[in-house]
């Protein structure tokens, strides 16, 4: 009797995923591309434009393809969800800006190219990121220097309003966006090195254990940056965002609720002082509490935003078929309201879902890191994207007072898009375990 020498059939490996990460990313990019393409074609149909007007779609496709190829070459083990999500959001944003304010669209498309290039550039730098961690004070003081420069030489492209931009010719850049990245990098590095000292080296007041001043000092410097921005630049949005990032990262690093509570108390005190000291804060709070009596004045923007969202109902009016242009500055601050009007509740829920997944993926990456710097960097980026999104979405729907920050990847704003993609680049680097 001889043994059957036919090899046994291979058993199905249930642990092996159906799709590889690269294939998964390609599939998701394909779905994103399908959505962006259909939206763009619908816009062309409504406007009666020629097919050549869809050239931004080609730009987007080129960015998606080149980004995917570059990432696959350099970081094959990366998270496959992050890049498709941000490409969906920025492609949607390009179609939106073309619909809401066509003259701004070519510039946004150009910034998309620059941003993708920057993201790819980040991934080509040393992946250990020690260069980011080591020179934290360079990033901090560089960011502060930009902030001072803005206070001294800042301009507004519109000619009126807060002077938050630095310009060279017709090209404007918002330094507060870069400062955001510098802040995250500094905090991630500082907290990674000193979080234990913050916890163990301090003094006791009653039942409260406070950190030593020499360790808390730099953090207080960061906190005062928020105050400077609010006082000098009247930029309520950025001031709130910086303080929230600072507080959140401090909590992640130390796990101490004391810092959160203390921070919120400081925020309340600062907010109260600002309410009585600055017209812009008082106005924003008044509008938030009761916008209806001022619907033809100060709260026109918020009221029209809510009306636009109501007009969209569940399924939306369709791209190009609503009336979101009744909302002032809709292509920038109130792009979320435009989504609500033309894509409806379903569209806005999709946007919320994408941003929530993005934040959750970043936080999940943070948990999986052995290196505390990389963990805090990922957490900081996730927190930043989440808080910035929540600030503008909440302000648009009167859930919280309105602040003038952009909706990540979707609002018009080259500086914002560039810095967000740089952050995404760092996130993708962190996500690759190799």
């Amino acid at each position, binding site marked *: 009797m001889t043994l059957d020498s036919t090899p046994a059939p291979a058993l199905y490996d249930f642990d092996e995923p159906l799709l590889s990460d690269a294939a998964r990313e390609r599939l998701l990019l394909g779905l994103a591309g399908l959505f962006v393409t259909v939206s763009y074609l619908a816009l062309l149909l409504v406007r009666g434009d020629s097919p050549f007007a869809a050239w931004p779609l080609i730009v987007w496709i080129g960015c998606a393809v080149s980004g995917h190829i570059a990432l696959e070459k350099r970081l094959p083990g990366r998270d496959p969800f992050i890049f498709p999500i941000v490409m969906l959001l920025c492609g949607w944003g390009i179609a939106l800006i073309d619909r809401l304010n066509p003259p701004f669209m070519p510039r946004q498309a150009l910034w998309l190219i620059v941003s993708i290039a920057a993201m790819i550039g980040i991934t080509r730098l040393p992946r250990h990121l020690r260069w980011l961690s080591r020179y934290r004070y360079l990033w901090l003081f560089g960011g502060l220097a930009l902030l001072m420069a803005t206070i001294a030489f800042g301009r507004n492209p519109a000619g009126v309003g807060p002077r938050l931009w630095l310009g060279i010719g017709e090209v404007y850049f918002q330094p507060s966006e870069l400062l955001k990245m510098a802040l995250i990098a500094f905090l991630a590095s500082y907290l990674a090195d000193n979080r234990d000292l913050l916890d163990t080296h301090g003094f006791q007041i009653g039942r409260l254990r406070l950190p030593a001043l020499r360790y808390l000092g730099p953090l207080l410097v960061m906190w005062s940056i928020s105050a400077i921005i609010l006082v000098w630049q009247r930029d309520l949005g950025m001031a709130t965002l910086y303080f929230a990032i600072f507080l959140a990262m401090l909590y992640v690093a130390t796990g101490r609720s004391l810092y959160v509570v203390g921070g919120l108390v400081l925020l309340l005190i600062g907010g109260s002082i600002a309410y009585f000291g600055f017209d812009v804060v008082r106005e924003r709070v008044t509008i938030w509490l009761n916008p209806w009596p001022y619907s033809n004045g100060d709260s026109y923007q918020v009221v029209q935003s809510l009306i636009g969202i109501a*007009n969209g109902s569940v399924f939306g009016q369709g791209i190009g078929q609503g009336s979101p242009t*009744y909302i002032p500055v809709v292509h920038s601050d109130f792009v979320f309201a435009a989504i609500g009007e033309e894509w409806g509740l379903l569209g*806005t829920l999709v946007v919320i879902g994408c941003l929530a997944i993005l934040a959750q993926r970043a936080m999940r990456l943070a948990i999986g890191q052995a290196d505390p710097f990389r963990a805090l960097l990922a957490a900081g980026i996730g927190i930043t994207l989440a808080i910035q999104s929540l600030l503008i979405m909440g302000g648009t729907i009167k859930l919280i007072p309105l602040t003038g920050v952009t909706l990540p990847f979707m609002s018009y704003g080259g500086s914002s898009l560039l810095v967000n993609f740089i952050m995404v680049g760092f996130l993708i680097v962190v996500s690759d375990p190799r």
Partner: protein
Amino acid sequence: MMGMTRSTNRLTAGVLIAFLAVAVSLTYWSVFAADGLLGRADNPRAVEFEQMLRRGAMYDRAGKLLAQTVDAGRSASGKQLARRVYPEPSTLTVTGYYSLTQGGKLVHGGVEEAFDATLRGDDTLTPGERIGDDLLHTPRAGNDVRLTLDLSLQNAAAGALRPYSGAIIAVDIPTGAIRAMVSAPSYDPNTGEGNLSAAQLLADPSALLFNRAIQGVYQPGGALETVVLSALLTDRVTLDSPLPIPTAPLQIGKFILDCATALPGTATLQLAYADACPAAFASAAYDHRDSLQAAIEAFGLLKPPSLAHFKTQTGSLPLPLNALPATHDELGVQGVGQGLLTVTPLQMVAVVAAIANHGNAVPMTLVDATRAPGMTTWQPISQPADQPAIISSTIASSLRLALRAAVTDGAAHIADQPDMTVYGHASYALSGLGSDPRTNGLSWFIGFVDTPNGSTTAIVVVVENTRNPTLAAQIGGTVLYAASRMAK
């Protein structure tokens, strides 16, 4: 790292809860609070949506255009807009007025208001079609509406009343089709007056958009004599009954009521009616109080007259006559139409229409057909056919005689026309607070003419701020003449 894991997880949970709160808030605004938001006056989308609507046109009975929607450029968000034009300003109080500005929508009066859903196309869409149109943003067109109005007669009546304030209604008997309805002063949106905003129009002290014909409430004065006469005839008083001192003036407060024209020393009830002498009717109210109350109710003067699809106004009699003190003075004032009873021109034309229709009520209509967009066939609107008897045909015949006598021998003689048999009664009423007898009153003419095509046209004319029955009769005669000629 365990500590960081815990804090990171908590922070993640907090962030996700915050996103959930945003989602819940969004659901509230886009679903539950949507109707309230969209109905706000400062919602420019509502105005824009209305302006995208191709509201149906209005035509007169001969197909002449009275109102239509034309293109008006593009909105701030690029949508095609429309505006309403009224090529025949004399018909504005009949058509009503529709305008859209950023301040809001104004749909005021007339057919625009009564047939708003039809003109918008709302009442012909099934729920499924409405959802489909909303989803696909199909431009909506409303239905056209055909009025019973005769534009030629309307213009003739408007011209006859110019430059006075007042109202004219002309009704076809027995169909009840309103052939002319004039209210003055009115508003011409095609001239420089077209720059008035909706708010200015509504606030204008001349009440430019107010339809006096169906909404104006007036003191009937001598016009009530027809109703009083009907009551007397019901109580078997005859037209040739002699009257003592028929020309006696009547004092109402500090004002004196006289006959519209002079009378010989003795006269009959018929002649007193023809010359609108108040004394006979003052005493009739005292002697025939119950019959007068019954006649007032039978002729429908205490309820809004029926005009299919329209809201009409009624005058009032706050207290029935038998609840008033039974004195000559108190009831005499009621009998001459200077008491508590007020009436509208539409109510008075219903009175004279019933007389012309041999005592039977005439159900009046202003719109008789609609037409779907793109179609050529008109669909008739069902009309009330009920013509209950108000007075007996015998009494109606007697009233006819009296009305004829008022034209041949009385205050309405100027209404008489060659080759026509005009029936009518001219009178006046004290009205207003001024002491100038030339302006503290208004003048009435009620009458009808048998037209060559076998029908009859009944009219009411009321002229404000003048105590000149001859003027009202002259206007009435002109309109009846025009009606008769147009009926050939």
